[in-house]
């Protein structure tokens, strides 16, 4: 089985979000980048397929050279090869088009991406790759088993979960649950050394007319001060929620 894991290079979850260039660009100053958490769960699941079922795992990112440390980290975790499509990730549709080309050229059976990136939260790339490559698609995946060309997937739904059966080629939108937080792997020294020897192929992008564009950004207004209620006067809390906030 040939697996492609899509890796988005995103600001660490604790990052302060700021913008520059008249609020049109994300301010990368002082920001630490990580593998998108939703992608890392899928990458970790792919390691299981590699170790138990002999799968070959390639990681891919659409982005400039600055994203290579993130790809090297994925190699250090255990992926066999990496591909970087050499173009800035401007919008979800363009990224999906670039990835669809990689999927088709590489003949991948299983593509695992995160349900969304934690930066732009577009939530569209895995589904669009599925649409563009005419593959099966399951989103919000919290469990994935593959047997030959059949797959059993559990997806999270509002208020519960649903088990579906499908077949390869398959695109997965993964999230926490596909592996547990405690299953995530921290690269060890051997992994980091080996990652330096693994192939990281830079491929040229295809030309795409973007469908959407970011115009500008803005931050929520600072919140007013909290109203403190004494623990001895909870009637006042109920009164405020009922008469002031009108939520109960």
């Amino acid at each position, binding site marked *: 089985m040939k697996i492609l894991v899509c890796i988005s290079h995103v600001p660490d979850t604790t990052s302060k979000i700021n913008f520059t260039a008249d609020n049109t660009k994300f301010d990368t100053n002082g920001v630490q980048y990580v593998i998108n958490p939703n992608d890392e769960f899928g990458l970790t699941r792919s390691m299981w397929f590699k170790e138990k079922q002999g799968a070959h795992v390639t990681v891919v990112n659409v982005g400039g050279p600055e994203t290579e440390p993130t790809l090297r980290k994925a190699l250090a975790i255990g992926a066999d090869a990496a591909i970087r499509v050499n173009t800035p990730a401007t919008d979800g549709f363009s990224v999906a088009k670039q990835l669809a080309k990689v999927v088709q050229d590489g003949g991948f059976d299983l593509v695992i991406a995160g349900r969304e990136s934690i930066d732009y939260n577009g939530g569209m790339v895995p589904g669009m790759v599925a649409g563009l490559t005419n593959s099966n698609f399951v989103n919000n995946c919290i469990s994935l088993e593959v047997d030959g060309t059949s797959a059993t997937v559990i997806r999270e739904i509002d*208020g519960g979960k649903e088990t579906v059966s499908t077949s390869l080629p398959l695109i997965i939108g993964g999230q926490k649950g596909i592996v547990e937080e405690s299953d995530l792997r921290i690269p060890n020294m051997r992994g980091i050394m080996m990652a330096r020897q693994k192939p990281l192929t830079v491929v040229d992008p295809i030309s795409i007319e973007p469908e959407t564009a970011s115009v500008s950004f803005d931050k*929520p207004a600072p919140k*007013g001060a909290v109203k403190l209620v004494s623990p001895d006067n909870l009637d006042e809390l109920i009164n405020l929620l009922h008469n002031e906030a009108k939520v109960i």
Partner: protein
Amino acid sequence: MSVLVYTESEKGSLKKIAFEVASYGKAVADQLGTTLTAIAINADDTSELGNYGVDKVLKVTQSDLETFNAKAYAAAIQQATEKEGTKVVVLSSSVNSKYLAPLLAINLNAGYASNVLEAPSSTSPFVVKRTAFTNKAYEMFQINTEVKLLGVSKNTFGLHENKADATPEDFSISLPELGVHVESVDKASNKVSIADAEIVVSAGRGLKGPENWGMVEELADVLGAATACSKPVSDLGWRPHGEHVGQTGKPVASNLYIAIGISGAIQHLAGINASKVKVVINTDPEAPFFKAADYGVVGDAFVVVPQLIEKLKAFKAQQ
């Protein structure tokens, strides 16, 4: 030309988000000077859509669409879009709508904006405001394609009444080959889901152990609320993953969010700050959650929560 909204239903009844999506669609239709059509799949009574500006309802009643399938539902909305000559299609932010949206976007060659907060600030060029960076920022987002697909954030645009006819019209769908088949659904029917809840009661590590969740569930019961938890609690296995809310868990956009024994890490706050009113109960007055909350109680959850339950019961009895 009319704007098309996909109005979701469950077990034959339209969901509340269907009316919010219709309200949003009506605002866009007014901006574009056109009418509003809804597509409803296996919904019994769609007349209430007429209270929210829907002129016409394409009613699909097919047993092969009984269980949700993203590809099938995307095909249904695509066929409705083509029939109506629609240029703007509006969906909700439910798990199912977010699942089908990218498939639909590719089928329609439509640019897609998710997590949309407000009616378009301009229709030419077409620009909408959406959330990004997990609610830590807003993005003004331009769609350049002829057909536009919007996913509207829950509980933000709100319900806006507008009288219209909601004239029903039967509509049948030809299904593509599906490729994905539902084997089983595991859903607690007696519990409010976090996605549908008006009120969410959430607790964190401050509760010390899973055996102490009884009072959280009781408080949720009294309020008709869903229960949720912080990331450490789900990672420790005290509560199921489906209850984890925050940046890597579920997003919450309820009217009221009550956080008990949750310190308020930046990742947690990002996931819940689309909620309208936030209440925090914590022993530590320095907990970051107090900076994000509207109302706060500095106190021991094991003392405060049982008292709050009793007082709420008395309050509810008077209502």
